[in-house]
């Protein structure tokens, strides 16, 4: 039975990395994981704000940098890490395919891996050209024409694509009927 997915459902599936159907069981678990993540995030915000407030009295600039970096690290590694572990533990992120469709699933994973490699490499290459401009005044055209930067982000893109492919393969489960 095919159920038409709403835009909201697609967003939830994308954020939680659920490739299959978002059925009532998956939705229930996603709601529970989301509530836990929200509680962690609010607790972090309260504690980090208080700590940064105390530090800022004596060291305003240090307090700013601590807040900036902890606001990047805690949500990415802490909260996202929790969501990733929780969804994997419940097998919500598994891609189940029939044995006869396994080869197609591997091909799809390869195409996804290549797509992600290209996306990551190009995005980071452009992002670096802008950040370099802000940090040391290097004009974006200089970064974009630098062989060193080009090779660097080409290799980073390939590595990212390979890692994403490996992760997709780990999630792809062959079902024997």
């Amino acid at each position, binding site marked *: *039975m*095919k159920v038409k997915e709403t835009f909201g459902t697609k967003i939830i599936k994308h954020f939680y990395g659920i490739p299959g*159907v978002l*059925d*009532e*069981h998956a939705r229930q678990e996603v709601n529970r994981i989301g509530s836990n993540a929200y509680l962690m995030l609010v607790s972090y915000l309260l504690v980090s704000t208080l700590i940064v407030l105390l530090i800022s009295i004596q060291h305003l600039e240090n307090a700013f940098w601590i807040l900036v970096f902890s606001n990047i690290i805690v949500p990415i590694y802490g909260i996202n890490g929790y969501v990733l572990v929780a969804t994997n533990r*419940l097998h919500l992120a598994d891609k189940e395919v029939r044995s006869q469709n396994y080869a197609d699933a591997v091909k799809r994973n390869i195409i996804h891996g290549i797509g992600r490699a290209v996306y990551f490499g190009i995005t980071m290459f452009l992002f670096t050209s802008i950040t370099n401009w802000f940090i040391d005044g290097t004009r974006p055209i200089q970064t974009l024409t630098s062989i060193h930067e080009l090779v660097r982000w080409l290799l980073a893109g390939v590595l990212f694509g390979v890692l994403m492919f490996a992760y997709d393969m780990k999630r792809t489960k062959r*079902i024997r009927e």
Partner: protein
Amino acid sequence: MNRVKEYRKKQKLSQFSLAEKIGVARQTINLIENDKYNPSLNLCIRIAKVLGTDLNTLFWEVDDNES
């Protein structure tokens, strides 16, 4: 213990095929069969329809004394 597994096997359906017919994940069928997840009434009705039976047969626990 419900009788979903028993009736699924009678219909010669795999967990995967039953899940596809109902529009849920295979894991959900597995959890229901092992009494690790209580499905909604709506989902119970869909399972019963696909397995060609009724809710009582699938989910009502009958004591030995009653039967």
